[in-house]
């Protein structure tokens, strides 16, 4: 659907800031999240987890647990089949270990009991005999040929000599003559970087309530970003038809990519099936850290050549990501996005994925991009320092723009990077004075944005109000945006529209809420569904007026005759058309199903000022400004909210957050005290500047905005710290002891 299809440029509702429809429920405690549901006869499920990073399961004896009074079911991997397709088998094996445990926290058995006390007691009665195996948790160590093999049989085809079988994927992107490019450079900087694994850190732990009747029908209430996906995977694992498993998405207490797969859901369903009773299964925070899906950790080499006036002549990156105990393709996104912000003649990226004895990674907001772009933007900053160039001018000089052949292949259409950089340059932040021990950093960021499979139904009620039925869990105010787009298209007020998220049996398939796709793709389908309903409404008015349907058009909530020749009829309101619909052909609805493309890539630039305390190594963020192209900001409050929230997650990643593994392969900080996410007192205001460069692929010009803002903070903060202390930092997080150590090494 092209931007200009309806020539719509002036908006009545898009761009305003109405209250969100779920606001009152969420400020009064009424909203129902994953752990908030109950069912008659409900049991409590608990999971026994491996204390070892890598071990063979020699035997599991559940007899004592089964014999405990109040225990209604105990399951192990023996209660599941062995799926034929690799993907389903890997997902199932991650939910319940078969033969081997692959990481500290890997599930080995589960119980359902009449209450939590009995369930916990039962877990202690399960006897698991392990044969401990050597383990590996570091990405570079896992690639070495003598590394312990996490899972045999997963090595990539054509595994290069000198690499371990843990290497599962290899990607290459780029174009141009690298040697010629580097030969033209006046200055080349080559540097290696590492980033720690971080967790999405959603405040709501994974939770679900499963029911399975003796008739083979199942019900699942779950906090997830994609209940259709949950249905598909669980039905495959449980050997059910998709139609027999109805999945309802609860309100979701944060996801950021981490709730795009299943961890406990098949286990809860299997316990419900075995016990014949509803089972609620809720992770505690330690389980969330040990056994859900954090992001990858990375090790990266970047080499960039630049002329003395700041033109990049060649750029190369090698990325090594570990994605935990099963194959992961996230490094592909890293290799594609690393140099997306630049218009380059010679560029190459190489990505390797490696398995380790850590939990299988899950998506985390722009998965794969932040760590790649962190390394690239750090080297660009170092070149700017070495050559005495302004870092914004250098980015403007090399910026990708319309017509640029991107480093990952496609040629860009209308994109907002240049406008975003210009906005940053003109902003007072960039000219503000800095004090002692203070530094300023900046970085570009990029995300592809997704479209994907989407269904929307619009129902016109007899009183002229409108119901929108969509199928994507609302993780950041999307029901408000969807209602706004429906109201805009129909020409009615926002409060006449109510948008709900349907269960899997009430609407066709919708892809997961991911890839910043919802406001774009569900919005697009909503607009199309509304246009279909408008066509029907015009036809109904034409029928009443006894004129040709083509002679009626829609404007501001009214059907109108298209001119004097059509007839002199008073405009007919949506309320009148709705009320008369039983007599003109029956209820009126519009719907749209699409596999949406044209999502439109997104760029942002972040500016940060910070101060490093030379005594403690602690970093204080003093000023932060986010500039981002939103295409068209449907509800600017929630666009700003994405920009601010993403920036702060990135600040946490840069300064404090990390998965810390001991020599024993066990996670040492599985709690929110020791895994330190930013708190309110750590931060200044996060200022935002929204740019609106319309996306040609959406009728209102909308682009996804949710993921790009986590990308720039890593390098922006690192560049600011490096400039502040006069030493290039190359490992995240830059927690106080690490900065202190760097300062001491400097002398």
């Amino acid at each position: 659907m092209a931007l200009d299809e309806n020539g719509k440029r002036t908006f009545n509702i898009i761009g305003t800031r109405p209250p969100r429809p779920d606001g009152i429920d969420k400020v009064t405690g009424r909203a129902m999240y994953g752990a908030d549901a109950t069912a008659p006869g409900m049991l409590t499920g608990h999971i026994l987890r491996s204390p070892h990073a890598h071990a063979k399961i020699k035997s599991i004896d559940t007899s004592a647990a089964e014999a405990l009074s109040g225990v209604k079911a105990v399951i192990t991997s023996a209660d599941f089949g062995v799926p034929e397709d690799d993907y389903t088998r890997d997902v199932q094996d991650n939910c319940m270990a078969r033969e081997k445990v692959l990481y500290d926290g890997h599930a080995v058995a589960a119980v359902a009991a009449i209450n939590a006390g009995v369930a916990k007691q039962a877990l202690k009665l399960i006897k698991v005999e392990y044969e401990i195996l050597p383990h590996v948790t570091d990405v570079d160590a896992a690639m070495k040929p003598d590394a312990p093999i996490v899972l045999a049989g997963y090595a990539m085809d054509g595994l290069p000599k000198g690499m371990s079988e843990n290497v599962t994927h290899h990607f290459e992107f780029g174009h141009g003559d690298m040697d010629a490019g580097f030969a033209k450079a006046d200055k080349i900087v080559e540097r290696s970087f590492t980033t720690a694994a971080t967790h999405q850190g959603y405040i709501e732990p994974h939770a679900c309530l499963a029911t399975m009747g003796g008739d083979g029908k199942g019900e699942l209430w779950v906090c997830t970003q994609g209940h259709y996906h949950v249905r598909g995977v669980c039905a495959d694992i449980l050997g059910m038809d998709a139609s027999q498993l109805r999945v309802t998405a609860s309100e979701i207490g944060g996801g950021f990519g981490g709730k795009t797969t299943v961890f406990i859901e098949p286990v809860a369903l299997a316990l419900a099936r075995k016990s014949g009773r509803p089972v609620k299964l809720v992770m505690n925070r330690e389980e969330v850290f040990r056994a859900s899906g954090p992001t990858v950790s990375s090790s990266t080499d970047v080499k960039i050549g630049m002329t003395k006036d700041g033109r990049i002549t060649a750029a190369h990156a090698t990325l090594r990501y570990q994605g935990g105990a099963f194959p992961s393709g996230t490094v592909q996104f890293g290799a594609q996005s690393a140099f997306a912000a630049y218009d380059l003649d010679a560029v190459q990226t190489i990505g390797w994925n490696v398995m380790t004895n850590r939990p299988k990674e899950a998506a985390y907001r722009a998965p794969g991009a932040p760590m790649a772009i962190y390394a690239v933007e750090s080297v660009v900053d170092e070149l700017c320092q070495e050559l005495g160039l302004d870092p914004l001018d250098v980015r403007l000089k090399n910026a990708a723009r319309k017509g640029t052949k991107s480093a990952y292949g496609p040629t860009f259409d209308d994109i907002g990077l240049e406008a975003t950089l210009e906005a940053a340059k003109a902003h007072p932040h960039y000219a503000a004075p800095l004090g002692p021990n203070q530094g300023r950093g900046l970085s570009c960021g990029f995300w592809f944005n997704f479209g994907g499979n989407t269904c929307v139904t619009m129902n016109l009620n007899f009183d002229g109000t409108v119901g929108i039925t969509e199928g994507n869990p609302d993780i950041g105010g999307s029901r408000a945006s969807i209602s706004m787009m429906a109201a805009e298209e129909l020409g009615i007020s926002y409060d006449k529209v109510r948008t709900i998220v349907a269960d899997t049996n009430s609407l066709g398939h919708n892809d997961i809420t991911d890839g910043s796709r919802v406001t774009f793709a569900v919005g697009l389908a909503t607009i199309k569904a509304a246009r279909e309903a408008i066509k029907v409404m015009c036809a109904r008015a034409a029928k009443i007026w006894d004129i040709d349907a083509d002679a009626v058009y829609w404007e501001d909530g009214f059907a109108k005759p298209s001119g004097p020749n059509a007839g002199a009829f008073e405009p007919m309101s949506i309320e009148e058309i709705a009320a008369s619909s039983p007599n003109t052909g029956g209820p009126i609805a519009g719907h749209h199903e699409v596999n949406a493309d044209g999502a439109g890539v997104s760029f942002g630039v972040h500016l940060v000022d910070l101060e490093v305390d030379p005594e403690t190594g602690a970093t204080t963020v003093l000023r932060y400004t986010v500039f981002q192209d939103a295409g068209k900001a449907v509800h600017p409050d929630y666009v700003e909210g994405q920009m601010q929230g993403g920036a702060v997650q990135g600040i946490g990643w840069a300064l404090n957050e990390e998965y810390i593994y001991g020599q024993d392969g066990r996670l040492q900080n599985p709690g929110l005290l020791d895994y330190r996410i930013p708190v309110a007192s750590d931060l200044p205001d996060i200022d935002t500047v929204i740019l609106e460069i319309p996306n040609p692929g959406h009728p209102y010009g909308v682009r996804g905005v949710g993921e790009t803002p986590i990308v720039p903070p890593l390098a922006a903060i690192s560049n600011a710290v490096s400039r502040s202390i006069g030493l290039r930092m190359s490992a995240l997080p830059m927690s106080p002891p690490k900065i202190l150590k760097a300062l001491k090494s400097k002398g």
Partner: protein
Amino acid sequence: MKNIHVSTTVNGDPTEFICAPDESLLDVLRDRLRLTGSKEGCGSGDCGACSVMVDGRLVCSCLVLGAEAEGAKIETIEGMAKGDDLHPLQQHFIDGAALQCGICTPGILVAAKALLEKNPNPTDTEVRYWLAGNLCRCTGYDKIIKAVQAAAAEMRGA
């Protein structure tokens, strides 16, 4: 272990419940009284999603035993609005888009109300330090701080 009988007041209503000796007040509120507005984000007092008032004191209800509520006055998020009339904090959180997923919102509202009762005119820094025990992963706190200040201004004027 035998369950304990507890008589208490929850949001102004006389309330009785039985609980296990090791059962947290949060579990009592959520599982026995069906007041699920208080959330468990960590179970260790680090996230503040379970914040409630006990006899006028702001606490993490995951760190209080249900049995300790004997004779106490408990206030939860469910008691903050008076019927359909939202507390100014609740209204400003909606108007100022100070929530995204909303899971931390009940705890933050309870904590912010406790702050404004002690200090009706806090600085931004005071709000930030008071709320440092309430984790939010969606908003970056910016709009939360602004909503608390907008509510504080309205309450001072009223």
